[in-house]
């Protein structure tokens, strides 16, 4: 195990009660500190089940999951995982507990039993990072969908976890809300936070360091986003849709207008086209 390994899955399988087949099976995975990793897959591929193991909301029915070298099976391990990994879920409406923005952000730190001064400092930091600094006293019902999801992020990071898991957190957002959230995530990542983005949108993984593809509850592929875009039919087989930009890039390569190995990142693509 590398020194800076934050999460380690060792042969993890999980079968929901009364389910015939496991939702995830034989997962071996390491997530290093400071890494931004995307977990991809179509609906029912086991992404959310895998995510819930990261902060011990689910305990493997087989195998072991270690967070900060603590096995999540034990009480200590569970506590350590909850403190080390925060989660943001798909629907912000179902994870906001308080009626006022700052009170909701304070919920996590309050649960940790921190001092009022520390809680206030964390709340103000989390709101600033999430771009909600001016909305601290606003009622939650007055926020837009995008703002609510950023509030959910603020609530999660106020616990100052080393790792943040976004479980399809952009699904219910409009393009602007998605863009804003991605900016927040980039800021957090550049501050050294480990990020795990669970998604089925390939355009969201461009900033990630690594992505893994889940299919039928198993890891089918593991590599960088650029390597993923070089794949052909496999993507369709896993139920993933190639971003428009990559399709354009492929067409141009086929027509001999671009070199085959140009990685499909926005800036580089524009540059290549201008040439």
């Amino acid at each position, binding site marked *: 195990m590398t020194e800076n390994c934050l999460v380690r899955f060792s042969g993890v399988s999980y079968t929901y009660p009364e389910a015939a087949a496991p939702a995830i099976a034989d997962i071996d995975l390491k997530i290093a500190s400071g890494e931004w990793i995307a977990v991809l897959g179509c609906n029912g591929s086991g992404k959310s089940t895998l995510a819930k193991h990261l902060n011990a909301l689910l305990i493997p029915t087989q195998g072991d999951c270690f967070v900060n070298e603590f096995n999540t099976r034990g009480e200590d391990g569970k506590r350590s995982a909850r403190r080390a990994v925060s989660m943001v879920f798909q629907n912000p409406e179902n994870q906001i*507990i308080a009626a006022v923005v700052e009170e909701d952000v304070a919920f996590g730190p309050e649960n940790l039993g921190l001092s009022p001064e520390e809680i206030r400092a964390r709340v103000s930091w989390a709101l600033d990072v999430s771009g909600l600094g001016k909305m601290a006293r606003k*009622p939650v019902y007055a926020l837009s969908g995008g703002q609510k999801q950023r509030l959910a992020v603020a609530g999660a990071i106020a616990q100052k976890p080393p790792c943040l898991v976004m479980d399809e957190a952009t699904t219910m957002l409009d393009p602007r809300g998605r863009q804003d959230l991605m900016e927040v995530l980039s800021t957090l990542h550049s501050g050294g936070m480990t990020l795990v983005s669970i998604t089925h949108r390939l355009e969201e993984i461009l900033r990630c360091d690594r992505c893994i593809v889940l299919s039928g509850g198993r890891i089918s592929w593991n590599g960088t986003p650029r390597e993923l875009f070089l794949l052909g039919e496999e993507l369709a087989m896993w139920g993933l849709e190639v971003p428009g930009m990559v399709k354009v890039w492929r067409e141009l390569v086929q027509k001999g207008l671009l070199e085959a190995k140009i990685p499909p990142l926005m800036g580089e693509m524009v540059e290549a086209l201008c040439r």
Partner: protein
Amino acid sequence: MRFLNNMTLGQYVPVESLVHHLDPRCKIVGVLFCLVGVFMVKGPLGFLMWGLLFLLLVSASRVPARLVLSTVRPVWILVAFTAVIHLFFTRGEPLFSWGIVEITREGAVMAARMGLRLVLLVMYAGLLTLTTSPTELADGLESLFSPFRRFGFPAHELAMMMTIALRFIPTLLNETERIMKAQIARGAELERGGPLRRLRAFIPVLVPLFVIVFQRADDLATAMEARNYTGGEGRSRMHPLKWSVRDTTALLFSVIFSFAAVFLDGRALLP
């Protein structure tokens, strides 16, 4: 469907005001005294005093009067029903009679009295929730009930349930409206026919609503667990409750005012 938009009880209005800054325990106990006082006055002087105090509190709270008044809307049927029952079924000196229907002087007085009491009751309670965030309200209740914890009273759990219930009122109202619109779009006639038919037409709204409520409750529980919630033990607060001189003054004022209103009202009614 408009009644859904009129529901404001429970929707906190965060503005800076003297009333907002009072300790929630002071506001809860103060309002309790006011409510008892409202139910003990009988004559015009008593109601006038409670009405004037209410106006004073609303202006001090800086909450728009429109919002305060709208807290009565969801209960106007109850107010009207209570008033009508008292109007027609109180015996006494007849003022007007038509067939078997008879309105008495005592009935008219009782109807006005009960109507005013209910309206004041709802508005005072509404002012409490408009000026106190659900979290503060829950913290206040938890603190007030904490002496009973040694007898096994679940003070924290009740307070948390209340916070969540108040937080989800607007969400569930939106959800209800969404389901109603979806059912109307599919040809349901929710606003036609007699009361029984309307009630029956509501079943297709209630069933999905219940399913959604349980789904949301499940998701919320997961989210709370993910945010390290393990119950009341070991929790701290961002704004710990602090009782100040201002709170003692406000509470004493509400107690003295309640006694004064009841006393003066009683004296004014003496022959």
